[in-house]
């Protein structure tokens, strides 16, 4: 039993890492008041960019950085359409996902079945990794996993305790008031959306150079949509994003483990989406939304002249 738990738990954290990276970014984007349904597209572009650049340059760091740039540039398009042009951001995000899936498929055709010359290997932290139970569950992952975990308190701290965080939240809460206080609403939204893209790209890179490691067409397989769900599930909070990412990652691990016991994998797969709908209902009450800080101006483009 303990062996089963250890093996499930040690698979859960890697399975949730791409989700965590993507969700941390989307939490910031949505905190600024912009919904980006393009996460799936930015993630898959991150995955192919990291794989392609690493394959060609044999330099892992370069590959991962390129993935971040790719995700950030895609997010820039979304920011332009939804913040500057102020047209429908739901549709723009969907378009971004389609473009990402399409371009990654075209670019990636040449990389299908190719082995990666260098890949992320797990770092066993000396001494700690030899601990029973805790060793394999906590201390034998690759660097990106540790970075993703390290980002959680940093991003939570910035969001709640720093001036930047206050500015970000105020823009998502009441852009007109933030504007009146001298905050550049457009700049903040651009930066937050682009940060979301960078993180989604990083999440995709994790999949193709560390988790798989390989390029498979459509390899994000809906992870981007789970990120959208997780952002709500976490109630826009980095710490809860981590819990949610590992919970949903764990569901993905368990589906293979529970299949022999007669629990259908496809019904388990529904859980993240069903739970998210439930959370949306639970947070629908206005007073509660205020207390947990659901961005009040989410999906509302801001324009000075309309006020």
């Amino acid at each position, binding site marked *: 039993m303990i062996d089963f738990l250890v093996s499930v738990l040690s698979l859960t954290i890697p399975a949730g890492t791409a989700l965590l990276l993507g969700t941390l970014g989307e939490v910031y984007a949505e905190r600024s008041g912009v919904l980006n349904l393009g996460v799936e597209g930015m993630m898959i572009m991150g995955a192919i960019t990291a794989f392609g650049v690493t394959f060609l340059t044999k330099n892992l760091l370069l590959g991962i950085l390129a993935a971040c740039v790719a995700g950030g540039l895609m997010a820039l398009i979304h920011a332009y359409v939804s913040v500057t042009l102020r047209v429908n951001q739901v549709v723009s995000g969907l378009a971004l996902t389609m*473009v990402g899936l399409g371009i990654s498929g*075209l670019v990636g055709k040449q990389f299908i079945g190719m082995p990666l010359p260098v890949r992320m290997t797990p770092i066993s932290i000396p001494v700690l990794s030899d601990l029973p139970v805790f060793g394999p569950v906590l201390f034998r992952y690759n660097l990106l996993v540790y970075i993703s975990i390290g980002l959680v308190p940093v991003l939570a701290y910035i969001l709640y305790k720093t001036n930047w965080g206050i500015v970000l939240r105020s823009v998502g809460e009441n852009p007109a008031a933030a504007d009146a206080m001298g905050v550049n609403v457009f700049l903040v939204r651009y930066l937050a959306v682009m940060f979301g893209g960078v993180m989604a790209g990083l999440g995709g890179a994790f999949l193709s150079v560390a988790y798989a490691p390989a390029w498979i067409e459509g390899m994000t397989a809906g992870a981007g949509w789970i990120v959208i769900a997780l952002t709500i599930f976490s109630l826009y909070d980095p710490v809860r994003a981590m819990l949610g990412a590992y919970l949903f990652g764990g569901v993905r691990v368990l589906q293979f483990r529970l299949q022999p016991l007669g629990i259908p994998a496809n019904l388990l797969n529904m859980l993240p989406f069903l739970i998210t709908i439930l959370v949306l209902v639970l947070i629908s009450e206005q007073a509660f939304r205020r207390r947990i800080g659901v961005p009040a101006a989410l999906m509302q483009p801001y324009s000075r002249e309309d006020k």
Partner: protein
Amino acid sequence: MKYRVRIERRLDISPSVQIGAVIFSLVCAFVVIALIFYFLGVDPLNAYRRILIGGFGSIYGLSESLTKAIPLLLGGVGLALAFRARVYNIGAEGQILMGAIIGGGIGLALPNLPRGLLLTMMFVGGFLGGAIWGFIPAFLKTRFRVDEVLTSLMLVYVASDLVKYLVYGPWRGPEQRGFPYSSPFSSSAQLPHIGITRIHYPTLIIALIAVVFVYILLQYTKFGYEIRVVGENPSAGRYAGMNVDRVVLFVLILSGGLAGLAGVGEVAGIHARLGPPEGISPGYGFTAIIVAWLARLNPILTILTAFFMGGLLVGGDAIQTALNLPSATIFVFNGVILFFVIAAEWITNYRLSLEEIHD
């Protein structure tokens, strides 16, 4: 004398501006797609030529384009109605799948009923399946003020997993040797076609009736007027005593139901069995969003745009095989076109003008 460019909101939007904006945005989209192809080492002119020939250049191509236009039209006209009311149902894909499940399930359960009766029951069941999937976000929006964008989207993946569960599990045909398909439908559960084409004309006729229905509803009825007012200015609608919740429920249930009919058409007219979700609908519900926007949410124009997007899908299949491109290629078209179509919304809402600066 100095001038500067001023951006101002257009007060009235004429049809010529609308059509001009759509054509302009399509031209821009095709230029950008050509550039993407060029940089990825695909000859764009060759690709476009093959798409044109593949989708529209032969009787066979045209018949296939029309076949694919059927689900796009059913989905697109419903979405045009919903978007008019500013209800953003983006879950048509899931509503199509629910229609396929209920409609297909009826076909599997009662294979020996007379054909006319069985097909009617399948369509009614499919409509209800899609309508229920539309009702859920509508109920959550009207009762709890939950945004319909996210709930309708989440339900796509629930429906998709439900289809997988059924075809991998209880509905898998015993003779399918482990493959994820139901048993084939009986002949009474299969739609007739025009000649040797795959055009399942009963569904096409239903789709055209739906277009006329939505057009008359929007243009000539009091309730249609309410839908338009609620879409253009919800607070004005509420002020005038209109029941906004009723509009939300109606457009989501109807657009869901129409998408459900599309699902029945696919399983009873094309596949004659249930299979994996991406086989039943390779993204028709999302492409239908483009169909609706491309038509500027005008129900009659969705006939044109559905046929256009259907042809693009067929042409996309053609370049896949001819130029050995991955199946995801078509998403480049869908995504870029969608971007420019919503950018066109900006063109029609604003105009640039020069004004003198006095100093």
